[in-house]
């Protein structure tokens, strides 16, 4: 009954450091997404994937990278962390694509860059 699992839940980074946010789903969904949530701004799409080996940019991809080597995993890498990347990051998966609205979200990863 795991659904979408994100790790870590909290992380503090120094400016210029790099890290990877992990996301795994056990529902065999082809579609996976990374969003960031900032207060009063809603959710912005960073990257998405329609299947293993296929990724594409969303609205705010700068400073991030993704890979999708398996159906289950969709890690998000932050290179050279900046204070502007302080945010809550949500991973989501979908059986048929975001246009159906059937997104299943993880509990989020809260990142602070100091």
């Amino acid at each position, binding site marked *: 009954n795991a659904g979408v699992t994100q790790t870590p839940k909290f992380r503090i980074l120094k400016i210029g450091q790099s890290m990877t946010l992990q996301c795994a789903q056990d529902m065999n969904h082809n579609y996976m997404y990374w969003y960031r949530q900032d207060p009063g701004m809603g959710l912005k799409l960073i990257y998405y994937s329609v299947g293993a080996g296929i990724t594409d940019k969303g609205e705010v991809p700068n400073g991030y990278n993704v890979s999708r080597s398996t159906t289950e995993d969709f890690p998000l890498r932050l290179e050279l962390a900046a204070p502007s990347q302080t945010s809550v990051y949500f991973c989501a998966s979908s059986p048929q694509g*975001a*246009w159906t*609205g059937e997104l299943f979200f993880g509990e989020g990863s809260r990142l602070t860059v100091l």
Partner: protein
Amino acid sequence: AQSVTQLDSQVPVFEEAPVELRCNYSSSVSVYLFWYVQYPNQGLQLLLKYLSGSTLVESINGFEAEFNKSQTSFHLRKPSVHISDTAEYFCAVSEYGNKLVFGAGTILRVKS
């Protein structure tokens, strides 16, 4: 490109009172509309959706939303709120494709 405007950032309301959370969208084509709810320290959960058919859609916990094409709105309503409805509510829109566009969110605060 589609966009979503949630007209209120916060809505305070007393328990058992009715509430309406407003959502307007813009798009040049037919759209699909959704409301998501986010309880504190959790991810978003789908509350209800409009894809086609009846313009009035309902959730299992008493919320309803009505699609109004002429006013490009999809307002969320509940006739009597509970303390447990305190959460942030997001309106979202998609055209056919792989992207879902979210509004900025409305925080519903239910007071006893």
